[in-house]
């Protein structure tokens, strides 16, 4: 299995820097997620690793070997595209067999390998069908089978779940992760969906504007965001970011709970919370309101799980509290994390 090292990678389209100086290393067997909004450069980065785009500057190493000048087929990698890119004029069998034929694998072993790849994803029954006869989920599995059949050292996946129905997506996510664990191939996965990233990634690379904002495990990027962008991008509903006089204050909606509900009183910061609107979503309640006396003009969202029995009505003002360590502080100008300070009145 391969490691991937990226050194000072840059890609320019005219004046636009799609990828602006990125250093990254991917470990063996790791499932790395590139996460960011559209236009952040994640797909461009993936395509450069694939060899479909040539970098303006920088180096890419796969398995320790510099691959800058190698065409895709020499890099021993496989890619699954967002659209699956199945060959419409070929049967599923021929689609899966194509990479083997293209690489000159001996003809005798091809049918067996195709069957094996198909069995891995449960599509043996479709081998004689054409892509247009298959559903989205089935096509996705064909794309995966085609990627797997070559036994590559690296998998590249470009938002392969985004074309699936929402319901299918969770199941597919689970299958995908289990599959990767089983075969252990190093995988780089691109998505703009932060839930997918959190669910799938061993590590997440949060990108914006062609640059890496933070790299870390899902817990790290969630609990210790490096800047306001990462803080706001992960989590649904997003982190509350309140502009103070000398810094930006942030806290997650699910950490801000009624004072009475907290188990211990230690290191709790009590704040008055005025509720403007309640959304009952079944599994959670979302409260939209303001911090009554500290940040009266900023909207705050609070997420009360259904396990919290605390009646609230619109218009009411309640005493909520949050653990001191759950409050994050960001520099107003740069957005980067800064040291904590006290913005609340001492009790």
């Amino acid at each position, binding site marked *: 299995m391969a490691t991937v090292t990226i050194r000072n990678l840059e890609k320019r389209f005219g004046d636009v820097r799609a990828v602006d100086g990125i250093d990254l290393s991917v470990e063996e067997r790791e499932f790395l997620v590139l996460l960011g909004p559209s236009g952040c450069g994640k797909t461009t980065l993936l395509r450069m690793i694939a*060899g*479909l*785009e*040539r970098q303006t500057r920088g180096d890419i190493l796969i398995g320790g070997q510099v691959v800058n*000048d190698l*065409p895709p087929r020499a890099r021993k990698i496989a890619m699954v595209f967002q659209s699956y890119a199945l060959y419409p004029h070929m049967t599923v069998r021929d689609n899966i067999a194509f990479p083997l034929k293209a690489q000159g694998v001996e003809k005798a072993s091809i049918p067996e390998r195709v069957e094996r790849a198909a069995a891995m994803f449960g599509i043996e029954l479709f081998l004689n069908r054409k892509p247009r006869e298959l559903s989205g989920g089935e096509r996705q599995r064909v794309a995966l089978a085609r990627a797997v059949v070559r036994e590559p050292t690296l998998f590249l996946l470009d938002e392969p779940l985004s074309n699936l129905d929402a319901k299918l997506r969770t199941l597919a996510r689970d299958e995908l992760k289990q599959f990767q664990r089983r075969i252990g191939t190093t995988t780089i996965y691109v998505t703009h969906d932060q839930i997918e990233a959190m669910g799938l990634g061993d590590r997440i690379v949060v990108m914006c504007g062609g640059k890496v904002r933070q790299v870390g495990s899902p817990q790290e990027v969630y609990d210790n965001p490096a800047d306001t962008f990462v803080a706001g991008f992960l989590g649904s509903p997003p982190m509350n970011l309140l502009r103070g006089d000398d810094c930006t204050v942030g806290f997650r909606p699910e950490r801000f709970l009624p004072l009475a509900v907290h188990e211990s009183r230690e290191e709790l910061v009590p704040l008055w919370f005025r509720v403007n609107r309640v959304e009952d979503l079944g599994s959670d309640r979302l409260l939209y309101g303001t911090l009554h006396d500290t940040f009266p003009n900023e909207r705050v969202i609070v997420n009360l799980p259904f396990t919290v029995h605390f009646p609230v009505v619109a218009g009411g003002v309640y005493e909520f509290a949050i653990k001191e360590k759950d409050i994050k502080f960001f520099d107003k100008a740069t957005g980067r994390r800064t040291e904590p300070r006290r913005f609340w009145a001492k009790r």
Partner: protein
Amino acid sequence: MPGERRGAITSPLSRGVNFGVIAAFVAFTAFPFFWMVITTFKHTLDLMNPANNPFLFNQLPTLAHLRMLFQETAYAKWLWNTAWVGGIVVIITLLLAVPAGYSLARLSGTSGEQLGIGIFLTYLVPPTILFIPLSRVVTFLGLTDSLWSLVVVYPSFTIPFCSWLLMGFFKVIPPDIEEAAMIDGLSRFGAFLRVVLPISVAGILTTVIFTFTLVTQEFVYALTFISSSAKFTVSVGVPTFLVRGDVYFWGSMMAACFIASFPIAILYNLFVDRFIAGFTGGAVK
């Protein structure tokens, strides 16, 4: 793949081969026109001397052929005739094909597709089958040897093709826009006039250019229906009139050919992308 750099890693060799291939094709397609230009400005004595290197100007270039073309033949008149016929045919075609194309695209339901193709197929009926009966029709209408005969007959092939082409263009416009207009108070026809047509200007212009090109190219009907030299179109006038017995006035002929070809080609080139989009959009799906 327009605007795309295919294959990030291309070798200089493959690029060189590509360039060579394209150069060869361009030489093939453009050489006759290049040759037309050279011949236009070459002195007759230079042209008619088989010992001379035809690629060089062995005598000084001359404007004599151009002068002869415009002063001693009716070429300018032919250009005017062609433009005139073209203009009117374009108008007639637009008046009939634009509503037809819209009807096929929006108002004809499932049979619209079939009907559109059926109409298009009438374009394939060649003039060589129709010119004999049409010549009788023209005589019957008293339009023999008149440019009006062409004005009447030419839409018979421009309308089928343009209706189908316009159907393709109209189909691509999202129906939402018209529906929004209708909710805002326009009728279906009103939406067509006030909303769809302004959006389709590019497609309509493409149709205009294409129609004009078809008209200037037409030969069989013009040759059959028109006999007086003053009423020729360019397409017929040049081959018929500039040959006196065995003598070909090559210099003037080449000038005539080039002048009538090149400007249209430039215009056409501006619109060919849209033309192909409409063409393939009408054929596909």
